[in-house]
């Protein structure tokens, strides 16, 4: 089975195969793009893996959140979307062109700075979200027209809730 593992611009085709399982570790043969790697993998805690790639030692944390895998190693954090090779292509087809601005954190909508139909330019403030006692202005990721503002001042929002949709 092969997976397409993507983070931002980077994309890897990875096919892990378990070749041996001993009392202390699992041995994998991993085909990554065109090269083959031999790995020993063992779990220290549910999300904490110790990986030996050849003999290089890596501590890796893998946390799943929905379809994203957040992976940390030596203090660097990567967020990957992992898809089965076949599912991948259908998903790509459904992606649309609009920009959906979602709440990056839970918080309180203290002020909305734009209305439906407004023209906005990249970096312009859309609304102010209060979280952890700080007022955070949420900027437009690009220029466009505000199509929808499904929240109101005073609303409490959770991470991922849609705040503004820009065409």
């Amino acid at each position: 089975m092969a997976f397409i593992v993507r983070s931002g611009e980077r994309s890897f085709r990875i096919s892990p195969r378990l070749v041996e399982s001993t009392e202390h570790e699992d041995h994998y043969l991993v085909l990554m793009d065109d090269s083959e790697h031999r790995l020993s993998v063992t779990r220290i805690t549910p999300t904490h893996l110790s990986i030996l790639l050849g003999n290089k030692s890596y501590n890796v944390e893998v946390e799943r959140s929905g379809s994203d895998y957040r992976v940390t190693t030596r203090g660097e954090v990567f967020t990957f979307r992992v898809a089965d090779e076949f599912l991948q292509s259908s998903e790509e087809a459904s992606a649309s062109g609009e920009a959906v601005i979602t709440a990056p954190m839970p918080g309180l909508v203290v002020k909305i700075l734009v209305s439906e139909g407004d023209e906005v330019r990249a970096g312009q403030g859309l609304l102010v979200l209060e979280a952890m006692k700080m007022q955070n202005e949420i900027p437009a990721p690009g220029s466009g027209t505000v199509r929808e503002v499904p929240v109101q001042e005073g609303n409490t929002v959770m991470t991922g809730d849609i705040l503004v949709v820009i065409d």
Partner: protein
Amino acid sequence: MNSIGKVLVANRGEIAIRIMRACREMGIESVAVYSDIDRTSRHVRYADEAYCIGPAPSIESYLRIDRVVETALESGCDAVHPGYGFLAENPGLPSACLDAGLVFIGPSARSMALLGNKTQARRMAVEAGIPIVPGTKEPLSDVREAEKAVEEMGLPVLLKAAGGGGGKGVRIVREASGLRSSLEQATAEARAAFDNPDIYIERYLERPRHVEIQVLADLHGNVVHLAERECSVQRRFQKLIEEAPSCALDGELRSRMGEAARKAVIASDYHNAGTVEFLLDSGGDFYFCEVNARLQVEHPVTELITGVDIVKEQIRIAQGLPLSFSQEDIDIRGSAIECRICAEDPVSFLPSTGTITELEEPSGPGVRLESGISEGYKVSLYYDPLIAKLIVWGRDRSEAIARMRRALEEYRIKGIHTTIPFHLKAMQSVQFVSGEYDTGIVQEIEHPETEIHIEIAAIAAAIVAGEEMAVELGGETEESRWKMLGRVGNGLHRAKW
């Protein structure tokens, strides 16, 4: 002498634990207060006694002077320590303590009120002959007054809360068109944070260094400074990294700034621990900003280079004891750095909430951790995102930097995002390592990805995804995950506990 046998700590998180540790080492009992969602927090477990004083919003719990004082009396405390933040700079607390016959571990209400009002403090400094940054001497009454000040001083300017510090209620204004909305935001933040919406304005120095002097003053007229802290690594006026000593000071400048700090403390009739903040420009000129009339977040870097336990000294001073050392006894040994570990995204600095599911903390030579969290702790949106402070000591600055990098790599916090990756990049950045930096540094630090790390991470994600797919196909649910981990299986080798 005021004998202190039991202290109420009017705070939460890492600083509450820091203070309780000092109490425990001095044989003093400590009493925690907590909001109901903090029932499982570490400071409640750390204290000898704990009292719930209200619901989660701090305005109904940690900011309630009346409940703090009542609880101190009810639990038989002799004294109250405010920590930093919350009530630490509210003169109402020392006043209420005085009325109730409790010792307040900090300055008097009078000096606090003087210094807490940033405009009065600036006037005090001018009278004492300490240089200040140009700006308004009174709070702004409205946006028109702000516009007038801008006309006089020119742009950029800084809007600052008169009622408190910690980066809350601060805005930089570079264009006249942004003045109104910045003032509104700053006012709202200042009201929420300090219950005081007053904002004043000063000229914004481009990229100065932010250097502060730690001072201890007892009730017998002894005033000693414990050298400086370099606090220029800031984002949105929130300090991220502090160090001591500063690369920008030599012995001569340290003496001059230390002397200015002592003057400010004496002029404001200040006692207990305090910090005098200065801006230092590239020409070596320094300007008084304000006095932080409390224990600072970053006090540990000073403790590591001087060997002085500042919290214990605070308690001794409050007991009426004279300082056990004079200025000549203070010598600086090595170099110390602090990284603030916040529950925030390391790139966007947006807050992150969740439950700490795993925690592995750094240790070993020269490493000190001040942490408010433990496994199972829930990081909520109600309180400050600062969850821990990682501090290191080294024989010299380069050892301290190498050590901090090593300690950051060891630190594993699962369940939330933290600023650890930012700090790791900072410790490897040319700017920080050279010591040639100013308050513009955070924008300059880059976040390159290490090729081998992204590859290993991608492989790990694929392996775990493959395993989870196998589990799902096998009909097992997410809920049975922990149960599954109890078995030794074929497939990914599992933790067996």
